[in-house]
């Protein structure tokens, strides 16, 4: 039985031919398939590029391209991969400067010491 993750990179012909119409699974691998990859790990571009538009699937993995977006990344990594104006610098928290002029809260003994 075909893995659900392979559906987007499978030709229509193979998809239907792989179904167990006679009650028995077809054991043969899909033609010209290089490797299996979960489509959810692909970027949008890679996802659509890997579709078998002409019946010849071209699987491009994130690892092959050396970069790409994946929903398995952390939020920081995901947005960090996007070249925002060429300077990816997302989620940087500004340093809070300590204000030494703020007086500490007084208590009753402080009031008593006042007089």
């Amino acid at each position: 039985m075909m893995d659900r993750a392979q559906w987007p990179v499978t030709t229509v012909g193979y998809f239907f031919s792989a179904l167990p119409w006679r009650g028995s699974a077809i054991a043969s691998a899909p033609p010209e398939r290089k490797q299996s990859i979960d489509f959810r790990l692909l970027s949008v571009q890679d996802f659509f590029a890997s579709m078998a538009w002409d019946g010849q699937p071209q699987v491009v993995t994130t690892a092959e391209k050396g970069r790409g977006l994946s929903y398995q990344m952390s939020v920081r990594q995901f947005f960090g991969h996007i070249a925002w104006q060429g300077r990816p610098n997302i989620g940087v928290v500004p340093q809070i400067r300590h204000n030494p002029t703020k007086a500490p809260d007084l208590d009753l003994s402080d009031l008593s010491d006042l007089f």
Partner: protein
Amino acid sequence: MVLTTSESSSPLLGYSHKVDHILKKKYPKRHHHYRFSDFFSFDTPSGSVVDWNDSRNIFAGEDFIVALIEGLEEEVGSASSVVMYSMGRQWGQRDAESFKIWFEQEFGFSVKQSSLSFILETWWWPFASQGWGNWEVDLNEQKNGFMFINVFDSAVARTLGDVGKPVCHIYAGLFSGFFSGLIQKQLNCIEIQCYAMGETYCKFLLGKQDRIDAATFWQTEGGTARDIEKRLQNGEYLG
């Protein structure tokens, strides 16, 4: 203006029946209870009003204030201000004791474990609900051994209008009594600026006897609140 007793059942008023605060009985842990309809509980059958802290309250109008002050002046002359101050002082001393109790009952920790700003806010909120006006405590002069308390919309001054002299002696007594009881030190208070002198708010000076005596003298000599403030900041006292 609302006058209170320390207990809801006061034999002084010939009143022995304990009246429960209906909302407090239902929500004993509620803290935001200073709205008029929440803070007071009206017991119509007995004709009594208790507040959230189980004190019995008497509502008094401007006629009462005028009658009280003019009646005292009629009886004791210029010493009426001293009488009003003494009334306020005794009231403040007793209120300091009851405040410590209800503060701990409501919040589960004592005043000694609390921050000063929280103590002061908690103490004055009932007075604000009772119509004594809003206040502001100025601790900027703490290093000089005194502090200022500003009262906005004083019930006494608002009632008497522009009479050209300080009139909120009961407030001064209240502050001296309360703070003396709170920190267990003898403190005095004087009103150095009053709404009844044409100012926008009343200003009280709280400190030890020597500073208050000096301020009283300077005020008698015609010194303004700003003059007194400057002299105290410069460390001037009576020799």
